[in-house]
């Protein structure tokens, strides 16, 4: 009945398969470029991927529950827009302005949660709608022009403790918190259970709707944190803030081994390794002065492989149903009723 040996072997192979890819990417770029494998470049990569990591954590929670939130780029954009406008036009202190951003992020997440849970709309469609609409609102508010941050805030972008940028630390804190939330709290276990099967979870007595709602709120909140981080990194708000981030986050989550079917995978190290994969490719190709479009091709290929592995792991692609052993003995008698009558 139990097939522990082959299962654990398979799992091992799959887990290490991902690490092998990561090591291979690392090795290729180390050999192909002069500065890839340096401490400075490593810090630069962590710095660059920090906002993505934070936003991916929110995405991960939603995906673990078997849902999807593709509005996070727009949530990041709109919620940071509030902060910029408050600081620039109304002289609101940065701390208050960013608190508003976080509140806005959570509120917009709640809006998503309401549409998905309250109105029962498919998460992909619901957040596609808010992705478009929220970006529209933000563009309206900013007139789609570039608005620089006040000097005092812009300098935060270079803030570092020793060689480590502050946003790397922020990302680390967020990742650890999200991972603990997922792994060690009742809420996290319940999300996992919902991702395993919503109907089953409901039958066991888990308040599915409420938990999914909270997951969306958190996703919005994390999106706004990521938004603030990108905003400070760039030093200004532009129509591009957060654009495409939702898909990067989905890719990070999936490559990090979290199943889009829900209930499988971990934030640590999954999300970090996923983000690192993409950052290494971007950074390495950049240093090789490769054609900038090559990045998209490679990224696409990696997402594709990750999705395929996910589907296999989740048993969606099963080995074809055992074909009937067709024995061609048409003449043989079927008079086996007598022999089947007596049972042990």
């Amino acid at each position: 009945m139990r097939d522990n040996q082959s299962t654990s072997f398979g799992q091992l192979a799959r887990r290490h398969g991902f690490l092998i890819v990561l090591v291979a990417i690392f090795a290729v770029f180390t050999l192909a470029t002069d500065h890839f494998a340096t401490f400075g470049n490593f810090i630069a990569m962590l710095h660059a991927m920090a906002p993505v990591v934070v936003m991916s954590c929110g995405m991960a929670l939603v995906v673990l529950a078997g849902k999807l939130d593709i509005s996070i780029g727009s949530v990041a954009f709109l919620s940071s827009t509030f902060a910029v406008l408050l600081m620039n036009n109304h002289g609101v202190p940065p701390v208050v302005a960013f608190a508003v951003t976080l509140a806005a992020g959570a509120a917009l997440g709640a809006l998503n949660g309401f549409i998905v849970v309250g109105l029962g709309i498919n998460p992909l469609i619901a957040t596609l709608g808010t992705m478009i609409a929220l970006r529209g609102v933000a563009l309206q508010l900013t007139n789609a022009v570039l608005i620089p941050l006040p000097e005092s805030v812009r300098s935060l972008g270079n803030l570092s403790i020793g060689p480590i940028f502050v946003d790397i630390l922020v990302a680390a804190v967020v990742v650890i918190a999200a991972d603990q939330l997922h792994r060690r709290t009742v809420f996290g276990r319940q999300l996992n259970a919902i991702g395993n099967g919503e109907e089953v979870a409901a039958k066991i007595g888990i308040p599915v709707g409420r938990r999914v709602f909270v997951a969306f709120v958190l996703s919005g909140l994390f999106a706004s944190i990521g938004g603030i981080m990108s905003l400070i990194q760039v030093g200004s708000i532009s129509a591009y803030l957060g654009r495409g981030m939702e898909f990067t986050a989905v890719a990070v989550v999936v490559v990090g081994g979290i199943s889009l079917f829900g209930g499988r995978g971990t934030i640590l190290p999954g999300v970090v390794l996923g983000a690192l994969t993409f950052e290494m490719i971007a950074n390495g190709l950049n240093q090789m002065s490769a054609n900038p479009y090559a990045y998209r091709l490679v990224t696409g290929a990696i997402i594709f492989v990750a999705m395929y592995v996910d589907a296999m792991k989740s048993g969606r692609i099963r080995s074809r149903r055992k074909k009937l052993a067709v024995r061609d003995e048409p003449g043989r008698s079927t008079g086996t009723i007598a022999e089947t009558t007596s049972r042990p």
Partner: protein
Amino acid sequence: MSMDKPVLELVDIHKRFGSAVALAGASLTLRAGEAHALMGANGAGKSTLMNILGGILQRSEGQIRLGGTAIEIASPRDARRHGISFVHQELNMLPSMTVAENVLIDELPTQGGFVSRKRMRERVAAILERLGCRFSPDDTVETLGMGDRQMVEVARALASDPRILIFDEPTSSLSEREKRRLFEVIGRLKAAGTAVVYITHFLDEIFETCERVTVMRNGQTVTSGPLADYRPHDIVTHMLGDVKLEERLRPPRAPEGEPVLEVDRISRQGALDGVSFRLHPGEIVGLWGLLGSGRTEILRALVGLDGLDEGAIRLRKDGRLQPVAPGDLHAEVGFVTEDRRGEGLLLPLPVASNISFANFDKVLGPLGLIDRKRERRFGEAFAERLKIKLHAISQPVRTLSGGNQQKVVFARWLGTAPRLFFLDEPTRGLDVGAKGEILKLTAALAEGGASVLLASSELEEMMSLCDRYLIVQRGRIVGELPGTADKETLMQALSGPGTGA
């Protein structure tokens, strides 16, 4: 704890859904340390009664007494608080999570806001030990076999320390060995003073594990008492009640001609065990067995809906029997079940489109596009032939009555003129008139030369049609009876050899 004082009494419970009566005086008395078999044919009201006990449904009338005091059970949580717990037939598993998480998911122990893995593991390890399970609380459920998963479900039910534990068909997916283990566990629970309700369709199991039995029929308790007072045959008779013998729709006849279909020792782990039979042209063969005996599984396996581990199926083609894969056989068979929607009726679409679905080649116009006029005429022809009651052929199927929907399913298959029909409870949920018409239609199919394999829980239905019966028990065909067999013989067959009496 006294063995005689009832732990739980359900007294004269009634339940109405609108005008439909689901329970009309059901009673059940449980004593501590006993296993109590709850028996009844399909639709007898067992599930409704258990849902009332589980707080999922509210009774319309009657009383629930726990230890002599009248109580209300307003919700599943309430039921658990009263010490009532369920092991459901379908396993509610979270495959990617650990055994411990699965067992305690609705009440994870925490410490300082975090789930305490240590306490979780300890509690679950203790429960698993009580159950005699060898796997660890840290095992992932997806690495466990069916029997172990069933044990996880039992462990979850035990986590709340119930006084009353209800098993709803727990053995339907278990192997013989796993079943033994479950029975041992039930024995241990009884010894610890737990009252066990055991719902099953397998007669032999109740004689093995239970002390008392309650039989329900048509929403009522028809008999209850110590099992020692019953023979298996008595229980079947109580379950099925008086069968009103209706006239046969056609006289039984002996198989004639070369077999159209030969099923040769097909098996599937845990479901079918060496099933063999032949089907001759123009005959109606009844698969006669209780629910869960494997009659549905035989039909599903033949058309490839469930896989096969072993065996062969041969279909007559070009004058000789040739091996055929179940998936391919599906295309040759008119397959009608109680689940009209599951069988692919597209409820929002017009009747005509639904009928033409398996028959597109007959409704195409010159450009290979569907010719609406032709489609309509095609549909109308069948509607008339089957006397489908409708206003217009363009009417959505959804708006038809159940019987007429079922006729649309037949119409679709008739268009392809199959030589074989597999009918699984084709009249379930239909009113008497519609039932009769479906049965007549079945007789007409056989008259037209088609071979019919019919599975039904209703004896009178079977007896009005079948030319012979294959007796199905536990995924095996354990005997065969001629179409002339009387009601006594058929009932006897259900409790006959192999039921452990």
